[in-house]
């Protein structure tokens, strides 16, 4: 900024005013960007939800979350399980006893899932728009 100012100083008074104007604009812009960031962040932090896999059930089987949130699945059974979207858009992969894997949901909508190993196990995540 000082180099720019010096350059314009050599040409006369008007550029100096322009430099001050530019500085002002940049400062305001920077402040606006910073304040916007703060506003968004304080509005809502992403939440991590938990679904337990227990006695061959997803608990809760239906879960409503907000766009940007994550869901972590923890398997409490001896038998390995998965949480796999019906069209395999996302998949936790094999979860052995006490293992945890999380998935972040950035697209709104209802997403049904099942266990690849025990297809009678079903669940649903409803992702609401921010």
């Amino acid at each position, binding site marked *: 900024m000082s180099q720019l100012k010096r350059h314009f100083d050599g040409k006369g008074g008007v550029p100096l005013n322009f430099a001050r104007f530019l500085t002002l604009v940049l400062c305001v812009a920077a402040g606006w960007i910073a304040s916007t960031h703060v506003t968004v962040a304080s509005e809502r932090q992403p939440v991590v939800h938990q679904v337990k896999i227990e006695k061959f059930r997803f608990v809760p089987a239906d879960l409503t979350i907000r766009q940007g949130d994550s869901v972590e699945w923890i398997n409490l059974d*001896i038998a390995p399980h998965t949480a796999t979207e019906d069209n395999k858009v996302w998949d936790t992969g094999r979860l052995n006893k006490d293992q945890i894997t999380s998935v972040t949901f950035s697209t709104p909508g209802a997403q049904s899932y099942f266990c690849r190993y025990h297809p009678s196990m079903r669940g649903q995540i409803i992702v609401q728009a921010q």
Partner: protein
Amino acid sequence: MKTKTFLAVAVLAGAITALPSSAQDKMNDLEIAHTAYTAGNIDIRYAHLALAISENAEVRAFAQTMIRDHEAVNEQAVALITRLKVTPQDNGLSQTLVEGAAAKRAELMSLSGKRFDCAYATNELGYHQVVNQTVEKNFIPSVTVPPLKDLLVDALATFKIHEGHAESMVQNLQCRS
């Protein structure tokens, strides 16, 4: 002896019957542990046979689940046995199960295609029914060591899911038509 004979007959005949709850000679914890482990291993062997012979996607997926789940349960059993520093005891019921399974494997090995799939699926259903009845009505009430009881309860939950899957597999294969 009455219990063992009854289960032996039920398993060999493929009958689907509950064991009498007033079983006369109760097995001890180490015998129960041995038989539960053996029953799981038998099903793992059936599953490997299915993967070698069957070309049906549902049958193969079921067999893979049997291997995955029974191995997981038996791993927990080994961990528990190691922790308790005990050795499971072979017994008449374990031996009867092993003999019955050898005969069934010989029968299955002579089959292929849909006949194999149906025989395997039907046997899985009958086998899980008999084992589940035994674990629920006989083993769990008899066992005295709490962690072994907990393991049997968890194992039973798993085997009951298998029984349900075997049932729908038999239906989907339309074996009775």
